[in-house]
């Protein structure tokens, strides 16, 4: 489902360099990418998401050669096929719960905001226990609730691949486990593959595959 071949990347300002000879992931698989802070986990997720473009090599998701697409096509692919969960959740505090969940539909025309999308957004929020808070401002939600909203936003397009960057980094132990439960539950239900960047080794037993980022690069 996900296939990376001979991927090379370096920032223009120099310093950090990423070299990835080969890595692949099956559909529906759950993988954790571990490594210390600053080792390049986020960069790898951005390369897979098409936010960054490798200087050489190929990244393929299903039948799409991501590295062959221009930026506009990569954005279209990303908003339709990928779900992104950020460490700080990155919700918009001036929008309410439902508007945050539906945000991707407002940002790209390839993901239309129609009745089906609204219904799906409300349904996702209800599944994470926020069905009665659809129009509540984000600033009035707890950390755990915000995390769940961020997850719903990543799932609004029914993605084939979910990329989560330290999704539990800012959560207390209870919410951390609950968040991972939700991620896994949604991935299983939709058949989506899941790649989670983390430096929390205690979570590793929950994944089908654990990839040490430093070994991967080595």
């Amino acid at each position, binding site marked *: 489902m996900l296939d990376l071949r001979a991927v090379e990347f370096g920032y223009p300002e120099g310093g950090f360099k990423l070299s990835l000879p080969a890595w692949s992931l099956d559909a529906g698989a759950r993988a954790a990418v571990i490594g210390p802070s600053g080792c390049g986990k986020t960069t790898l997720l951005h390369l897979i998401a098409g936010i960054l473009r490798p200087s050489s090599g190929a990244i393929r998701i299903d039948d799409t050669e991501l590295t062959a697409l221009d930026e506009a096509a990569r954005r279209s692919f990303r*908003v339709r096929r990928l779900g*992104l969960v950020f460490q*700080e959740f990155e919700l918009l505090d*001036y929008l309410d719960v439902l508007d945050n969940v539906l945000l991707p539909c407002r940002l790209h025309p390839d993901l239309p905001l129609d009745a089906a999308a609204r219904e799906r957004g409300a349904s996702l929020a209800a599944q994470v226990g926020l069905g009665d808070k659809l129009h509540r401002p984000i600033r009035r939600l707890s950390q755990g609730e915000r995390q769940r909203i961020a997850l719903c936003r990543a799932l609004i397009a029914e993605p084939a691949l979910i990329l989560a960057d330290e999704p539990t980094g800012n959560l207390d132990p209870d919410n951390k486990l609950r968040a991972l439960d939700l991620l896994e539950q949604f991935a299983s239900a939709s058949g989506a593959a899941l790649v989670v960047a983390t430096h929390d080794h205690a979570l590793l037993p929950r994944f089908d595959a654990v990839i040490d980022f430093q070994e991967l690069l080595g």
Partner: protein
Amino acid sequence: MRHTLYLAGRYLAAHPGKTSILVGSLTLLLFLPAGLQVLVDRSATEMRARADTTPLLIGARGSSLDLALRALYFQGEVPPPIPHAQVTRVRASGLADPIPLHLRFRVGAHPVVGTSIDYFRFRGLALDGGRPFALLGECVLGAAAADALGVGVGGKVTTSPENLFDFAGSYPLRMPVVGVLAPTGGPDDAAVFVDLRTAWVIAGFAHGHDDPRSDEVLEKDEEGVTANAKLRLWQEITSDNAESFHFHGDLDDLPVSAVLALPHDTKSGTLLMGRYLGREEPCQILQPRAVMDELIVTVVRVRGYVLAVALLLGVATLATVVLVFLLSLRLRRREMETMRKIGCSRGLVAGLVAAEAAGVLAAAALLAGGLVLLTARFADSLIRALIV
């Protein structure tokens, strides 16, 4: 586009403080020059309209502007008095019809205009109710004055003392209202009209009293009677005491504030003006239109200065608004980055910022437009309060 506007609207609504400051600043920026332009245009129109219908004005030498403003709008300084003989002089010239104006007194905030019945005809004033003043002590109210004083035909109004302890001067006079004028939209609406002789009564040049009793008479000779302080002065002229009111001295010596001179034709007007050119001449004659044109030139010049200052303030305000926007963008860099990561194009992010700016600008333009309309709606009152 719909989503961009929606997100921009939600952002602006969620930050009411910042949005209000930006909208307020831009509203002032837009309103100042436009509102000023409306005020100047309307004031020029208003001033010229009134002045155009007033061919010639005679008054004491001094400020022609004060004389014109007081005689036309009943506002500003009361010009020094001239003798009623100047009214007689105009009539005797055979060149123009005079209308005297006595403008010294007030009823509350409303000017008392002592004049002749000809004034109503000259200004085209129609009665909404009642009749014109006919007897000494009667008054006719302008429409706005009647509203403000809450008095109609059959009611009474009392003149205001010129100062708190007006021992030696005029006594307040209680006057029956015999007529109310239809509204005109001009300064006449706010006035209280009385016959010139009634104005002289208020000024103390005529008074009424009982025949003095013997214990009230201090001195009696062929010129008149001097009474002591026991004699009661009347504060209201009624049918019972009207006969007792009398003027002392020659009526031509009594004061008027100005004389409206209505020449029979252009040549008569020119000839009449020529008669007031002598160096020894105690009065001035002026064409209100010319005086108002001078005032308008001054107002336009002042507007230029105000606009120059407004322009500088505008540049400073605009710079501040831009700075606030740029700082806001820096604070929202992560939000923009998140949108881009999700799949938003740079163009859409820029469009979002532009939509927010356009929203603020549109709100400011709407508010400024509303303020300009309000200014236009109340321009006449504003002009009288601020300029006249």
